[in-house]
């Protein structure tokens, strides 16, 4: 009873965000020419949403977040590489392994890092990201610095045509579903006690503890959920869509920073914020890449600085503070 109430509340909150994904899905089918732009946008939206579940809601900066996305990519790549003879089953196993690996890493990291605060937490998580990457490269594990390439396995199993479909249409459909999952999970969190606990932790962790909130439990919960969605994203967008996983790419701290930027831009802890941030940042990045290839990062830096200095609560925070009508405000959560 309590749960169905929560689902109803969550759906009401998520109307606008779900609509965004569905519109993108329709546009994808209507304009095949722009399908890859739309897929890129979805990647950024999901990255921002997954990151938001932990960072946006608790205020902790996980600088090593991309490691969880990387784990997912490895999970998928390894499953396809070793089980490709099973056909479609290998891809299903791939998604399961992706979640399992990222959640496993998150539980280990969480046990250590979630006791730390502020700068120490940020530094410890960078340490985890780089540590895992250098372990893989240095000890030549799972392909070492070469990574894992699965294009050949996909083509051998499914034939060239189907393999191409898997790496475009199917991977993009997976992205859409992951995005919708992320929306629903975020909306559910925001409509239940979990969301209130996380917000209280973000605002004042000691006060939250003194007022009966099991701070550790909620932090671990958000951390693991956020990592799991990241894992799915890595599996779909990097392993399946890209056809290969390379440590220097999947552990690149730039993705974490992009996630931070998008969440900050849109408004941390909100439902719509990461979507706005993801759409804005994703399209900017895409067009800059078209107009002036190689200069994205040079443009990114001043944008980052401007966001931090001028919009510390993000675009959504800025708009929300100026909206008086409570119904409109709820729509904008």
């Amino acid at each position: 009873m309590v749960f169905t109430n929560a689902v109803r509340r969550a759906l009401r909150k998520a109307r606008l965000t779900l609509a965004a994904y569905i519109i993108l899905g329709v546009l994808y089918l209507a304009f095949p020419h722009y399908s890859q732009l739309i897929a890129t946008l979805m990647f950024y939206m999901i990255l921002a949403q997954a990151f938001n579940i932990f960072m946006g809601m608790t205020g902790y900066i996980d600088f090593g977040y991309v490691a969880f996305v990387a784990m997912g990519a490895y999970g998928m790549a390894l499953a396809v590489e070793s089980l490709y003879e099973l056909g479609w089953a290998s891809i299903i196993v791939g998604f399961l392994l992706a979640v399992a690996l990222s959640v496993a890493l998150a539980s280990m990291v969480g046990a250590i890092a979630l006791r730390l605060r502020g700068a120490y937490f940020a530094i410890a998580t960078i340490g985890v990201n780089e540590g895992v990457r250098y372990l893989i490269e240095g000890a030549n594990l799972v392909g070492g610095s070469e990574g894992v390439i699965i294009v050949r396995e996909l083509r051998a199993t499914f034939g060239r045509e189907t393999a191409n479909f898997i790496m475009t249409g199917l991977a993009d459909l997976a992205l859409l579903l992951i995005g919708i999952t992320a929306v629903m999970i975020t909306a559910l969190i925001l409509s239940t006690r979990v969301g209130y606990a996380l917000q209280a932790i973000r605002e004042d962790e000691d006060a939250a503890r003194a007022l009966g909130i099991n701070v550790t439990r909620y932090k671990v919960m958000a951390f693991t959920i956020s990592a799991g969605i990241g894992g799915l994203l890595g599996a779909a967008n990097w392993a399946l869509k890209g056809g290969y996983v390379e440590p220097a790419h999947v552990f690149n701290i730039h993705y974490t920073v992009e996630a931070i930027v998008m969440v900050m831009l849109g408004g941390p802890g909100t439902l719509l914020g990461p979507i706005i941030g993801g759409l804005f940042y994703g399209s900017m990045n895409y067009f800059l890449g078209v107009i002036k290839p190689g200069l994205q990062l040079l443009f990114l830096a001043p944008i980052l600085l401007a966001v931090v200095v001028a919009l510390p609560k993000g675009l959504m925070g800025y708009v929300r503070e100026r909206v008086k009508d409570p119904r409109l405000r709820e729509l904008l959560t």
Partner: protein
Amino acid sequence: MGMAELLRLERVSKRFGGIVAVDRVSLVVEEGESLGIIGPNGSGKTTLFNLINGVYTPDEGEIFFKGQDITRTPPYKRARMGIARSFQIPRPWGSLTAQENVAIGALFGARGGQLDVDEALERARDALRLVGLGGKEDAPAHSLTVVEKKLLEMARALAMEPSLLLLDEVMAGMSPRDVDRVVETIKRVKREKGIAVVALVEHLMRAVTAFAERVVVMHQGRLILEGPPEKVMKDPLLVEVYLGEPVEV
């Protein structure tokens, strides 16, 4: 009073480096009692609160609540057992609304597990009304005045349905009118809900006399006086404590 024992501290001490902030304090609070703890700045009152509330663990001694040993119980569990508190400098969650602040108290307090969000929000509305903040439900907590923030913290604590309410300097820096308002609220809470209230007070002896049935005086980490307010207030030792004279105990 003949009522049951709620909280018991047995020779509790807490040291910070070489400083003994709380020195072998023993204290009993009975159910539904209202107790004032007074003492000058630095006498160890807030540390004592933090020990009861679980922010600190004592170096020596034991603490019992409702007959259970809670000496090493984490703060969040103590909160669920029925210990609620306010902070000396109010610490509401600033960007949440007043109602949401109080609702979180209800969701995670003594009966938290049984409430869903809507019920908690409803209960928050009642608690806000009880402390006189009706109509401020949608105001972000950071926009409230200091007095309102203190009342908000009381509402948040009350929404937890505690059996023991710890109020840290809740009346400090208030105008006489606001003090009366808070004293009235405390009395009402006690009367309507039967909650034991322990309030820390540095000055404002008048307010203590107005609501406390019993007063203890802390000085240099120790309890040095105890009794009904009228009697304690007249004790020459109290004057010495506040004038900073050396006190022999």
